[in-house]
């Protein structure tokens, strides 16, 4: 498979070289993938933040956040087929151990602690970044193994009216449309965006789970996603800013049956979310205060058929958030950051014992300093959380970054992390088969990591690389276990430990009027878990965590032509503790984009070829992924 991948890369570069001869010599700028070891907003010294490449993001505007993030080696997406429930995991943690932050607000639903990233359209987001590692001190419960940042930034840069329109059509009768428009002035800005994607999802695949390995067409798997976002920003004087953000998404999915079944699926689910965030900030000479308020609404409407009977389950939750943060510069290069967060969760679920309310009140703070002419950066953080007026043990973290010679830095960090039981764990009614457990304790653990950062420029070459080694443990990890009465209940049952290695990098090479940009990443994860009451060393590999994952992305830019190749290798993934595993796979995507200048507008046309090698693979046992696909689209930017 590596030989095939090598030939693909050569063919791709050759096509770009041939195109070079005919194109006017103009470089189209593109944002580089940036790996950061420095503090940024709430990012701490000693940690790493990786932004999704903007060109790749623009090509996958019609796709979900899950599909876009699947190209990153530092995250693992476990999805029930395209458009199906998709959970994101980092560093061997579970899906509820990664926090999703949108415009500063933690938007994970309190019912399950897991956000279905298939229902979030990538086109409505301006920027997506990931931060592996524990961040409980800054984001509270759930940020145990990493954070995903989704942001929409409305800039008040006096650009005036602007707009964008896009359309895409492709395999499996998939089509999508996005439209944005707005106004950006000096003191006021507004923006509205709409995105719609619809797919029959009737792709072909080789069904290796059925007798005879038949080639089949996926049935009962259609989905559609509607997303609307609206933003306003006001600048009041020179030191005050006021912003409102609203994001509505509605995702419908027909749930196919398992690939081992010949009968088509009959069940379906609709996820409907509304997020509202209000930010007010005030700046002083050496201080900054921000108020952030939010209201989050989640609804899951599931219709299932059991033989001749059907059952509809409607689950809703709300979260009301109020947060105040203040930053103060004690002296030059010494900053103090404190905050207080109140989050009230409420749920109404068909199968709960009651309609609970949960009050979370947290105080948190960070001290950071930058010494010796920025050669040494330090920070210390702590968070005291309360849940329903009971104190949770304090969590704390620290990090440092030391600049060495030749643009090399060393970083170290350690963090205590925690994760509260979600509402499903606590309030699920005893149905005779499953029951919640109101006596659950929080999960607690540790993350630590160390690494090296290399940034170097040599003639026309620009290098950015980072290597990280990490270890983590989690105690009292919640797991649903069948008890002696045959009822499945969550218990603080497991102990998990993980160690791993991450490598990320990018290289930019400029040759005359061409730019070659390479970005690559590799992740090794050894994640194991066992019953923590066991006195034997009986750790087993965690489910759906591949030991090795690697990605390689190359962009070639010449004038108005941009071509890109994305290669991805994922090692086999255990699906249980008895040796069953998903096969390892290798994927290749190719993209070609050409931009036309039409007066003051930019018109782009593109072709996207996915799974070029026609690999038969799965992200989840029993749920197929499509073979080779082709998509074409246009984008108009005003």
């Amino acid at each position, binding site marked *: 498979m590596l030989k095939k991948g090598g030939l693909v890369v050569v063919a791709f570069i050759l096509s770009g070289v041939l195109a070079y001869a005919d194109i006017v010599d103009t470089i189209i700028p593109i944002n580089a993938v940036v790996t950061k070891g420095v503090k940024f907003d709430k990012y701490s010294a000693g940690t790493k933040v990786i932004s999704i490449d903007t060109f790749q993001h623009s090509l996958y505007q019609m796709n979900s956040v899950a599909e876009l993030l699947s190209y990153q080696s530092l995250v693992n997406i476990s999805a029930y087929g395209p458009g199906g429930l998709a959970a994101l995991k980092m560093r061997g943690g579970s899906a509820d151990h990664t926090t999703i932050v949108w415009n500063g607000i933690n938007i994970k639903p309190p019912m399950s602690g897991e956000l279905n990233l298939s229902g979030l359209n990538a086109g409505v987001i301006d920027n997506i970044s990931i931060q592996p590692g524990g961040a409980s001190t800054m984001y509270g419960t759930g940020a145990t193994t990493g954070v995903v940042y989704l942001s929409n930034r409305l800039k008040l840069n006096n650009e005036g009216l602007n707009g964008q329109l896009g359309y895409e059509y492709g395999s499996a009768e998939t089509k999508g449309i996005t439209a944005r428009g707005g106004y950006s002035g000096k003191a006021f800005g507004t923006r509205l965006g709409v995105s719609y994607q619809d797919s029959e999802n009737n792709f072909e695949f080789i069904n290796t789970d059925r007798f005879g390995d038949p080639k089949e067409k996926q049935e009962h798997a259609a989905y559609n996603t509607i997303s609307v976002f609206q933003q306003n920003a006001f600048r009041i004087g020179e030191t005050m800013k006021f912003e409102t953000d609203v994001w509505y998404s509605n995702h419908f999915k027909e749930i196919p049956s*398992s690939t081992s079944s*010949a009968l088509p699926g009959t069940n379906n689910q609709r996820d409907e979310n509304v997020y509202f965030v209000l930010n007010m900030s005030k700046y002083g000479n050496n201080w900054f205060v921000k108020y952030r308020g939010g209201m989050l609404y989640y609804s899951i409407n599931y219709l299932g058929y059991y033989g001749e009977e059907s059952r509809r389950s409607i689950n809703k939750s709300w979260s009301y958030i109020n947060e105040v943060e203040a930053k103060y510069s004690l002296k030059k290069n010494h900053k103090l950051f404190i905050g207080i967060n109140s989050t009230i969760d409420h749920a109404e679920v068909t199968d709960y014992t009651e309609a609970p309310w949960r009050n979370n009140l947290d105080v948190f703070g960070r001290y950071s300093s930058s010494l010796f002419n920025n050669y040494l950066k330090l920070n210390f953080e702590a968070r005291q959380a309360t849940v329903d007026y009971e104190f949770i043990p304090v969590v704390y973290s620290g990090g440092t970054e030391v600049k060495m010679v030749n643009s090399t830095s060393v970083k170290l960090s350690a963090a205590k992390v925690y994760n509260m039981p979600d509402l499903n764990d606590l309030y699920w009614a005893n149905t005779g088969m499953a029951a919640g457990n109101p006596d659950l304790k929080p999960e607690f653990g540790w993350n630590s990591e160390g690494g090296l950062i290399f940034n170097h420029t040599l003639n026309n070459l620009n290098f950015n690389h980072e290597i990280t080694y990490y270890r983590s443990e989690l105690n009292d990890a919640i797991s649903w276990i069948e008890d002696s009465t045959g009822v499945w209940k969550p218990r603080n049952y497991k102990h998990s430990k993980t160690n791993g290695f991450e490598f990320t990098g990018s290289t930019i090479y400029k040759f005359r009027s061409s730019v070659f940009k390479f970005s690559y990443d590799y992740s090794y994860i050894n994640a194991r878990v066992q019953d923590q009451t066991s006195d034997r060393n009986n750790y087993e590999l965690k489910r759906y965590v591949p030991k090795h994952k690697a990605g390689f992305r190359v962009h070639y830019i010449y004038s108005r032509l941009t071509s890109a190749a994305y290669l991805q290798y994922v090692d086999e993934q255990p699906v249980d503790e008895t040796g069953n595993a998903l096969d390892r796979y290798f994927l290749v995507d190719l993209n070609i984009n050409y931009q036309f200048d039409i007066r003051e507008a930019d018109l782009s046309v593109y072709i996207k070829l996915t799974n070029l090698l026609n690999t038969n693979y799965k992200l989840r046992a029993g749920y197929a992924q499509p073979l080779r696909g082709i998509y074409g689209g246009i984008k108009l930017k005003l």
Partner: protein
Amino acid sequence: MNKNISNFKFLAICTLVISVLASCDKDDDTPKGVYENGVFIVNEGNFQANNGSVSFYNYGADSVSNNIFKEVNNRVLGDVVQSIKLSGDNAFIVVNNSNKVEVVNRYTFEEEGVVEGITQPRYVEVNGSKGYVSCWDKTVKVIDINTFEILKSIDVGSGAERMLITNGNLYVANGGAYGTDSTISVISLETEDVVANINVKYNPKSLVLDKSGNIWALCSGKEVYDGSWNLVDESPAKLYKIDVATNQAVLEIELFASSHPTRLQIDNDGTTLYHDGGFGAPGIYSLVVDDVKATMTKIIDKSAYGFSYDSQTNVLFVCDAGSFQGAGTLYRYETDGKELGSYEVGIGPNGTGFKHTKQ
């Protein structure tokens, strides 16, 4: 010339006879496959994880091989493997949540075919060239065991479970599925229609035949919940003795008031019944069919997700599913409760398939 031909004929005949005799001996000695001499263990796997499997306990080696379907056929078996039935050279593996019955050679475990288009199948019984598959869509499907086609669908009660063939009829325990049923359907094998319904209380799960030709039915009892999942009605688990001549229950024995067993077995002689205790009374119990006092004796003190009686070796195979996270454990016991061994099997073991079976 004629003498030469006669001699030749004589030699040819002798050669032929010797060859036939030699090949007969060879056939008798040649193993039919790796999985000839032992017991198959059915492992459900995790729901919707597509990791159900079959293990094999080898009598001679006293050891277990796991995941044999995937090892032989290089593909997964499917989602929630419910049961296995051996008949002739075939094994019929019921994969409940994959809505199919996989058919393999019982000696080599190589795939032969599949019966598809059936909803939530549970168990298979075989009579001649026909198989009968109990399904939770309130039907029993009649299949051709050679072509794997569905020949007919017969309406029965809800939650059709284990079956038994005797006296020209197929008896189907309608176990209630997620609700309640109180009938055993009687299907004529000649007409393939329901000819009677036997009333029992409630949710019959398992049927066996005793030495006198009576059917014993284990009813797990009912548990009824209201809309807020409060238990509002419960009935005890019971044993019924059924006279097949009249298709009437002639004896009722109450087992447990608040525990709901599901598995019934009978020994080689057809005189001693074995049943589990359900989650409320974990263990394996015995009861003698002629015992007028119906004394229930606990012989094995172990929580069992499933168990089976091996009529070849007079041994009880007890399946412990543990937490369903990781391998389950198979235990072998003498009928007096003495443990003979324990073995790691697949996830969620729920029972076995024997080549010699009375149930």
